[in-house]
């Protein structure tokens, strides 16, 4: 089985068990080199794009001998650039199979060529491979793989192939590595005494709490903390060096110099799990402020002053070279307090909420919003630190979202599974008799409702702006969102966080929809 065949199997299946066995089959027979690259792509990593999409599109369009507008129409309908391009290229008669590492070599060679050489090389590449392999190949070139495989599933497959534990594999796949035969043999090496100073641990993740909290049992068996909306991160202090990782396994080194400075003052080597938050006057800043620092390569003095940050630590994973993850939450928490104290430089320890009953906690949870928190975290005191999202150990108990009734005014085709339907919507609220767009929402409707809205959109299109259609205002939906703040980057003057559709309000006409001032009032009542 080559990688393209694996990709097809993964793409076609919607059963986890089948996907797992496809992965195991593939890793079992692939060369170490190929296997390493497969892990690289399947865990969401990507090659630096060898050619800009613009060049790829114009190349494919010319090869297909179709006009630009027809490419655009087709792409808008298909919803996936790589797929559109692979389906319109002239048919090839070749059935040659290349190994994944060969593919990678060929794709990498494209980089740095001038455009005409690139075109020639692309033609070579796509003439020489089996037509059915084109789509995965194109996916590797354009970037995002998205084949419905989680990192956890790749970990499980490697664990099965190597006979090692999921935890060991997960840990080894963390951090920075170059895909190579060496890397692969390191991952499946039965000798588990490996050491890379920068390597983080897999993050423990919480499950959302739905239903009655009392079903969790005794409230005293849990540690309760505030749930913050910041950047989840792992701070590693080993042998005098600090490494800061985000949950997305991105190195954050250099972006939060004040945290690194405080880390240098720590009296122990340790690994801390926590949340980076914008922090001013002893309370957290809205996420949008912190966002100004995300993505900046260099942080200027002004920004450092305007959005100072804190590292709110809530767990201790390693101390003086010893892995603490198998110890209980209670033990780790006690040790964390011992190591960090309550406050040290930019470090804060996550406040423990003392309550003896669920009803007490429920009341406190109601105050989360005024404390700028998203709700509560509940962690079993006797639990070890888990790898990934294991049910029953960590729960996030969020406060009820804000909701508002809004009018659908624009629609755009979705991507992937929803490519043929108009499923990406823009919603508006009334402002002095005019509908002002304020949020985009994609999720929350059933497939049947989506089909229904799609039909409405097609039948009630007023204007087309490229892929976007303006729609006769008629449909009212209830939207939920987590947070709201004033914004001068938005036409409506407000920005909402994580908007999604709660339900289709068939019972409401557009005149019943809410007004922009209703939304703004939510800010002031926070």
């Amino acid at each position: 089985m080559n990688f393209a065949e694996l990709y097809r199997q993964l793409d076609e299946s919607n059963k986890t068990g089948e996907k797992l066995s496809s992965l195991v089959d593939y890793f079992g027979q692939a060369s170490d080199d190929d296997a390493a690259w497969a892990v690289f792509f399947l865990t969401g990593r990507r090659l630096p794009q060898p050619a800009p999409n613009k060049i790829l599109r114009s190349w494919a369009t010319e090869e297909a001998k179709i006009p630009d507008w027809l490419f655009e129409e087709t792409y808008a309908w298909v919803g996936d650039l790589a797929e559109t391009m692979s389906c319109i290229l002239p048919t090839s008669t070749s059935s040659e199979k290349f190994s994944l590492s060969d593919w990678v070599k060929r794709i990498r060679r494209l980089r740095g060529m001038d455009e005409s050489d690139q075109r020639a090389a692309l033609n070579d590449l796509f003439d020489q491979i089996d037509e059915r392999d084109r789509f995965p190949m194109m996916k590797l070139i354009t970037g995002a793989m998205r084949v419905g495989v989680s990192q956890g599933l790749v970990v499980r497959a490697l664990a099965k192939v190597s006979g090692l534990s999921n935890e060991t594999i997960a840990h080894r796949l963390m951090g920075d590595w170059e895909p190579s035969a060496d890397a692969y043999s390191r991952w499946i090496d039965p000798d588990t005494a490996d050491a890379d100073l920068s390597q983080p641990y897999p993050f423990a993740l919480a499950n959302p709490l739905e239903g009655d909290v009392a079903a969790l049992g005794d409230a005293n068996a849990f540690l309760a903390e505030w749930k913050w909306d910041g950047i989840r991160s792992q701070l590693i202090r080993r042998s005098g060096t600090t490494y800061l990782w985000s949950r997305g396994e991105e190195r954050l080194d250099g972006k939060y110099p004040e945290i690194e400075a405080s880390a240098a003052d720590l009296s122990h080597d340790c690994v801390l799990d926590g949340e980076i938050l914008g922090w001013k006057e002893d309370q957290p800043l809205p996420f949008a402020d912190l966002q100004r620092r995300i993505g900046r390569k260099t942080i200027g003095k002004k920004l450092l002053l305007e959005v100072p940050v804190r590292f709110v630590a809530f767990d201790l994973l390693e101390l003086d070279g010893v892995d603490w993850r198998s110890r209980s939450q209670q033990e780790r928490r006690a040790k964390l307090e011992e190591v960090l104290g309550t406050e040290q430089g930019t470090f804060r320890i996550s406040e423990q909420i003392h309550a003896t009953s669920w009803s007490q906690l429920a009341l406190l949870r109601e105050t989360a919003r005024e404390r700028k928190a998203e709700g509560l975290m509940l962690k079993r005191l006797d639990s070890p630190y888990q790898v990934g999202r294991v049910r029953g150990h960590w729960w996030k108990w969020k406060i009820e979202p804000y909701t508002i009734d809004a009018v659908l005014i624009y629609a755009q085709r979705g991507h992937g599974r929803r490519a043929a339907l108009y499923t990406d919507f823009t919603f508006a609220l009334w402002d002095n008799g005019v509908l002002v767009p304020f949020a985009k929402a994609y999720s929350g409707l059933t497939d049947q409702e989506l089909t229904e809205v799609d039909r409405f959109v097609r039948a009630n299109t007023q204007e087309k702006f490229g892929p976007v259609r303006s729609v006769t205002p008629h449909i009212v939906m209830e939207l939920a969102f987590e947070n709201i703040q004033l914004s001068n980057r938005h036409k409506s003057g407000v920005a909402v966080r994580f908007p999604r559709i709660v339900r289709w309000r068939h019972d409401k006409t557009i005149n019943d929809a809410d007004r922009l001032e209703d939304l703004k009032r939510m800010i002031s009542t926070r």
Partner: protein
Amino acid sequence: MQVTTPEMEPTPFRRDLLRLEPAGLYCPAGDFFVDPWRPVDTAILTHGHSDHARFGSKRYFAEASSESILRSRLGKEIDLAPKEYGERWKLGNAWVSLHPAGHLLGSAQIRIEVAGRVAVVSGDYKRQPDPTCVPFEVVPCDLFVTESTFGLPVFRWPSPESVFDSIHRWWRENQAAGRTSLLMAYALGKSQRLLAGLDASIGPICLHGAVHGPTQLYRNQGVSLPETFTVSQAAKDFDWSRCLVLAVPSAQGTPWLRRFGEVSTAMASGWMAIRGTRRRRAVDRGFVMSDHVDWPSLLQTVKETSATTVWVTHGFSNVVARYLREHGLSPGNTLDASPLETQFQGDAEDSEEISSSPEDETGS
């Protein structure tokens, strides 16, 4: 991106030959409609799918081998005059004849000739080989009315041989894994085409009730199809895992499937060529097989008819019409092409998604 806007009126073309009326495509010279969507006096039908053959007209003409299909769908009592392919007859001042469309058994293109000018309404058609019906015949004309269900350049059908190879491989894999193979396709046309191509030596083939009916009609017309049975004919302890079950798409997710135990689901349709539509069907496998023309065959067919005017109906009509208009088919020859708003659905992307009743088998 430039946006194509639909033109409300097709290019007028000898209005006594063919024009669009509220009830459908109308030939004034012969006073008849082709595939009308409202009851009329005289209707000539291209084929038996429900978006083309509608109930209530006083008099019908259709190709002889489609007669039993039409009577089973529109009623035994309809006034239907069967015609052979190539037979010419006169209605008013129009000469009419039927020619094979290759879409399904008895599917026809309607050739209409008035005062030396010829229009051909092709209905739904395909150019791929299909052992269950007479292959498409190119009919030279001045005005060609074409469908555009799959009128985008991403649609290029793989050869039926390679598709059947994949189906057979899938069937055998399922047998090895102890799973029943559930293949879903439209009841009329596609199902029989599949049946004709299946290798019955692999295992038994079971038909859903909605597939069994039309299949019997095909057999009565002398189309040779492998032996099949229906669920009610199976013994209680029947081993379904070696079996391929041919069912309508609406069977997916219904209790009817329980008897089969563990099932691998598949769908045979042109839409399976695209990942998004395939994934939305939530089937384990998608086989690309369509009874409509793909993009290259559509362009080829328009060219071969040497029509100077093309009306493009159901599907991507705006896109196809604009492409034909702007790019013609040979340099220097301009083609007058326009979209035509009809109520035909072809394999409308929705009809497949929505079809929830076993009766809904809109043309595939």
